[in-house]
């Protein structure tokens, strides 16, 4: 069985899909979004050791060239994350399917299912598939939170193992998407069409970032596309909030309620029936 590199597991989450869900955050992302609010999930740790000295509890140690983390002593002060210059975390750990399932056994009577998020969980697709298969066997639902950069099509085993996907469409135009994330968005848009066509698209999300993105254009185009595919798919418009963000990379602010309402109206006029602002 495969192992997955996991940034953290939240036993209860109210914001990662319907009902209560155990949220599993995978380490590693192929995007580098300017507004990323958990940049410590982007890269795998390369064991430089820089964070070791910043830990007030002495729970980071170099062992045989690797930085090891003593979970039991950790007080989650996140000093280590702040000191890391490589957008990583010494607290990400390799876990087997059994180890993750052991955690889910503890939460299973409290949850509707799990949501695998990240980082970008689809970079560890095999692990995601196996985990979802195990979780479905418990009669729980499996949701994937993805940036859409890895194709969902062409992998029946994966598609059978997952119930729904929550997909980020960060910008509609390729150039803007590259500027924001460092990557093109052709696959993202193809995933949007594909997942909608097989009824596995739970929601589409766009973060609204004043001054940095052409928010109106993205919302206009994405909402038209959603409406054409299935107007009942939820379109979630998320306010940019500078919490946890590398503010040296981005110069923006929380969008006004007026702007959010304007975007809401655009999506509505384009035919979307389920629009949420948060």
């Amino acid at each position: 069985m495969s192992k997955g590199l996991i940034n953290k597991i939240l036993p209860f989450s109210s914001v990662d899909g319907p009902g209560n869900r155990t949220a599993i955050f995978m380490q590693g992302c192929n995007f580098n979004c300017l507004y990323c609010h958990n940049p410590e999930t982007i890269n795998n740790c390369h064991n430089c050791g820089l964070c070791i000295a910043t830990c007030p509890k002495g729970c980071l140690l170099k062992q045989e060239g690797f930085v090891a983390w003593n979970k039991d002593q950790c007080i989650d002060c996140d000093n280590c994350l702040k000191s890391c210059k490589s957008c990583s975390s010494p607290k990400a750990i390799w876990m087997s399917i059994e180890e993750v399932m052991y955690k889910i056994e503890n939460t299973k009577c409290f949850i509707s299912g799990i949501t695998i998020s990240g980082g970008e969980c689809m970079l560890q697709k095999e692990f995601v598939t196996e985990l979802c298969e195990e979780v479905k066997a418990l009669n729980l639902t499996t949701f994937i939170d993805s940036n859409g950069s890895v194709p969902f099509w062409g992998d029946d085993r994966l598609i059978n193992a997952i119930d729904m996907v929550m997909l980020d469409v960060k910008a509609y135009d390729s150039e803007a998407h590259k500027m924001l994330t460092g990557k093109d968005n052709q696959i993202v848009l193809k995933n949007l069409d594909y997942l909608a066509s097989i009824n596995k698209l739970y929601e589409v999300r766009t973060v609204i970032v004043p001054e940095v993105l052409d928010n109106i254009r993205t919302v206009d185009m994405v909402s038209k596309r959603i409406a054409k595919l299935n107007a009942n798919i939820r379109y979630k418009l998320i306010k940019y909030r500078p919490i946890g963000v590398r503010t040296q990379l981005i110069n923006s602010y929380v969008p006004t309620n007026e702007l959010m309402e304007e975007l809401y109206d655009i999506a509505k006029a384009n035919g979307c029936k389920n629009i949420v602002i948060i």
Partner: protein
Amino acid sequence: MSDVKDIIKDTTLTYEQKVLALAKAAENSINVLNIDEETQKYRDEGVICDLFEGNAPYRPRYIVPDYERFLSKGSKFLGLEPPKNIWEATNHLLILYRHVPSITSFPVYLGNIDYLLDRFIKDEEESYQAIKLFLLHIDRTITDSFCHANIGPKATKAGSLILRASKELNTSIPNITLKYSDETPNDFALEAIATSLETAKPSFANHEMFSKEFGNDYGIASCYNGLPIGGGSFTLVRMNLAKLRPIAKNTDDFLNNLLPHVVSKMAAYMDERIRFLVEESGFAESNFLVKEELIAMDRFTAMFGMVGLAEIVNHLLDAKEEADRYGHSKTADELGIRIITRLEEEVNKYNSPYCKFSNGKFLLHAQVGIDTDVNISPGCRIPIGEEPEMLDHIMHSSYFHKFFPSGIGDIFRFDSTVKNNMNYVLDVLKGAMKVGMRYISFYSSDSDVVRITGYLVKRSDMEKLDTGEAVLNGSAVLGLGAVKNQHVLDRKERKE
């Protein structure tokens, strides 16, 4: 009698609150109970506390009338025929509520009001008007937060109308509990959750657990006390474990000497209170509730209360760091369980001739504290400010809830964004019930009505009172004390 003069001149009391305080002062001016020296010493030290029950018990503390019987038979004493429609039914109940004694003189139990009223629902909008007026009347006349109505477990039209009216009225009274079980449909549970996130009620009782212990004829009264319908509890006295810290030599001494000694003293003291009530006060001989069989003396029990488990555990283990403390460390939690197991054993050794319903036993009760408690956690709760993550918190509660048939509960405060995902709360509720949590309450950070420790008070009432104004709900005083002394508004907000 300066006490009496102070009461008369107190401008923060309403007229009615003064009358009740004066009655209490009169009762407390006599001494009729036989209390031995050691017991008195424990009382003086606050180890044993009768929670304002008064010096001369002349009515049971918690009366849980059989309102079903009342609606089907009417009342000779009150001159009421059985009601024929929703207006008569709500009116009859309001009349009876005025005549149900308690230590505050306000009824602590209002009945399973959805089941009581459902048979009278013909026209839905008319019934809604009747129910809304009924609840409004209760809030404005039964001005005490320990007054408790029950609904469920099954969904009814009346149940939905009660939830709708509660949301609209947004009052702190009555407290409401939904008896939750597999028979409660999801949409009804979700209506209840939506209501609780607006107005901090209903709470949720584990129907399966309660009905195993009491049969189906039980009610949730006062804060969260499970009691037999048609009876109730003669008394509630509490043991404050935190006050035993100075005299507990070590864990062994505490468990094997001190605890058994205090239990035996407290049990005898409780029985002395009941003796006076049953044998001397004349309650059973004269009260119409007994004569009309709305209550029967053999359906009564008594509640053995406790507070401060967290404090005694942390003291005995000398636990300073969070990781070593109650609610966080396995050793501490295990000691907590040992203490409660021992407490149960010792309490069960006592045999009261009066508590027929519970075969002579007193039922354990995790008391929610009083307004003047400082740094003493209610029952078996984890101190505010030290709450662990929700999953760990619920699992922790589940270890203790089984010991306390006459009441224990935990409260969770949510960020208001959970209103966008009510199924989240439903999932948590279902899980909590499955792992054996007896009673659980929710409220949202933006709600005006807040759950203090078991009872509800409006923030706006406490603010008024804090500036020296009298407010209708007498319990606002207790709420304000608890806010200041126990930091109840700082309960951990659950956001994830």
